[in-house]
């Protein structure tokens, strides 16, 4: 394989994982913007997406579009439950306590997934037959196209939702100033619920896209979730455009790093990047100084 062919191979695999990181990063941003907490269970939404899709396809024998829709619904419900049953009930409003509620929920969810689906890796079928495609000397499967295509569709859908619908605009208002939004008659609590449901649904989509490539398991989302966080920081935490750019950038960096340097330390790259960004440019590459220094 020539150097140029190798390079385009790395680019394609980088864009594929990068698209998934972008979806996860968007989920982090959604919740951060409305509540100012980091939701540690974001990665578990992703695990759940893959596991649910596996059960609905292989277990219940449903058609892919129906299974896809039901999985989005299921993960959105779990997201909403996290807000309604755990965070809303908390006696303390300290951010540290609220963040740790999501950590606890993440541990609990993983334990429940392990009981239901076991510890083994489950093979989720690809969305379409795996006939290899070739482009610029790189070989890839249709699943790569599905990942990138559905991610783009999800981003476009989010853009439409936040700019064109009343609910979307209300959620943005809550993110900017909850008190003012409440005074304008916006039901702030309902918007918080929606943002968790939306983040859950996004996590579910990310899980369904990536698990045909990685296999599904109860803990598959832990590392991908952390990388999605790194992507969100890279792009400027809380910025939607930054989340997408950060996700794609991190995916490319990782794939190139693994290909050109060392694949054993692939997982390390994202966190070294995270620390470097925090050190050199804490507001993120595209941020406008939101990460204020203390």
């Amino acid at each position: 394989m020539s150097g140029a062919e190798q390079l385009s191979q790395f680019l394609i695999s980088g864009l594929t994982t990068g698209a998934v990181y972008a979806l996860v990063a968007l989920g982090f941003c959604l919740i951060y913007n409305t509540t100012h907490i980091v939701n540690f269970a974001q990665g578990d939404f992703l695990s759940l997406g893959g596991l649910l899709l596996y059960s609905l396809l292989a277990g219940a024998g449903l058609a892919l579009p129906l299974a896809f829709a039901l999985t989005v619904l299921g993960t959105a419900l779990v997201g909403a439950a996290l807000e309604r049953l755990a965070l809303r009930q908390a006696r303390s409003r300290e951010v540290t306590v609220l963040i740790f509620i999501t950590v606890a929920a993440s541990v609990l969810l993983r334990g429940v997934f392990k009981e239901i689906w076991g510890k083994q890796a489950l093979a989720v079928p690809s969305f379409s037959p795996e006939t290899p495609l070739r482009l610029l000397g790189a070989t890839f499967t249709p699943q790569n196209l599905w990942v990138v295509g559905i991610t783009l569709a999800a981003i476009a859908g989010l853009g439409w939702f936040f700019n064109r619908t009343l609910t979307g605009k209300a959620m943005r208002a809550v993110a900017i100033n909850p008190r003012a939004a409440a005074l304008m008659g916006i039901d702030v609590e309902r918007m918080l619920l929606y943002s968790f449901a939306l983040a859950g649904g996004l996590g579910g989509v990310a899980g369904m896209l990536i698990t045909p490539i990685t296999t599904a398991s109860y803990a598959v989302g832990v590392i991908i979730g952390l990388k999605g966080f790194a992507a969100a920081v890279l792009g400027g935490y809380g910025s939607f455009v930054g989340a997408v750019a950060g996700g794609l950038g991190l995916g490319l960096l990782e794939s190139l790093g693994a290909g050109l340097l060392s694949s054993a330390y692939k997982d390390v790259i994202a966190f070294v990047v995270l620390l470097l960004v925090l050190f050199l440019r804490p507001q993120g590459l595209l941020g406008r100084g939101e990460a204020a220094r203390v």
Partner: protein
Amino acid sequence: MTRGGRIFALQLAALALAVLLLPLLVGNPYHLNVLNVMALMVIVVTGLNLLIGFAGHISLGHAAFFGLGAYVSAILSATYGLNPWLALLAAAAAVALLALVIGLPTLRLAGNYLVMATLGGNLIFTTVVLQMDQLTGGPSGFSGIPPLSLFGRAIVDDQSFYWLVWAAALLGLVVARNLAQSRVGRGLRALKDAPAAAAALGVDVARYKTGVFVISALYAGLAGSLHAHYFGIIAPKSFDIFVSVELVTMCLVGGMGSLWGGFLGAAFLTPLPQVLHVFEEYKDIFYGGVLLALLIYQPHGLAGLWARLRARRPLESA
């Protein structure tokens, strides 16, 4: 001595007495071993609690500091033949350095970046230990670590390690208490309650926080070294992110930021898995569920419950 100081001295004396008397009651070496592990956890959790209580930050990477202490101590003493006490000091230096590298960039920032940075750091640590198997023994672990010795006597048996580790744990509590009462401790408390006011009064926020984080990591690193020299064998599984979650659970169950809370949490949770053998299977559900319920309904843990019972009025969020 202040009233608070007298109370602390009394509590400490009571604990020291219990530590002295307990070996008379516990003849079984297995139970002594559980008590030793408990003391190691008390050390780590006391350090972690300093960070949570005074800097208001949570670390999900303390298992990695614990592990780094253990591995540096093990490699220097077993592979390079260094005196175990010197290895322990070198391990402490390595842990402090790692804490600085993680803490410097993240603790300057408002927001909870430290949580993710430490979590990421813990994952990197596990990956590196697994990959560098020539040095660390990889997934099967590292064995043949020499014990510490004192006055020409090797500290190998459970009983002599018991004295050493509990002395270290009590010392750790005293140091933590003194730190809390020092200028730095008062500055940090002011900082947690009113960051802008504290900064205006000259509290160097980022430096104080980084300092507390390094000290907190040092507690974990020293406990890790003691762990390695006591057991003689270490494996990466004892230092992964799930252990970090358990450590934080201990802090929160006891009561975050409360000195005795950390002690209570470690003392309460360490023996549980040893007592309940079916526990291993449902560990995640148990830890997740307990943590979730506590955080929702009793965010100040056992220590908060105690304070509320004594005051007989609802505890204001502190």
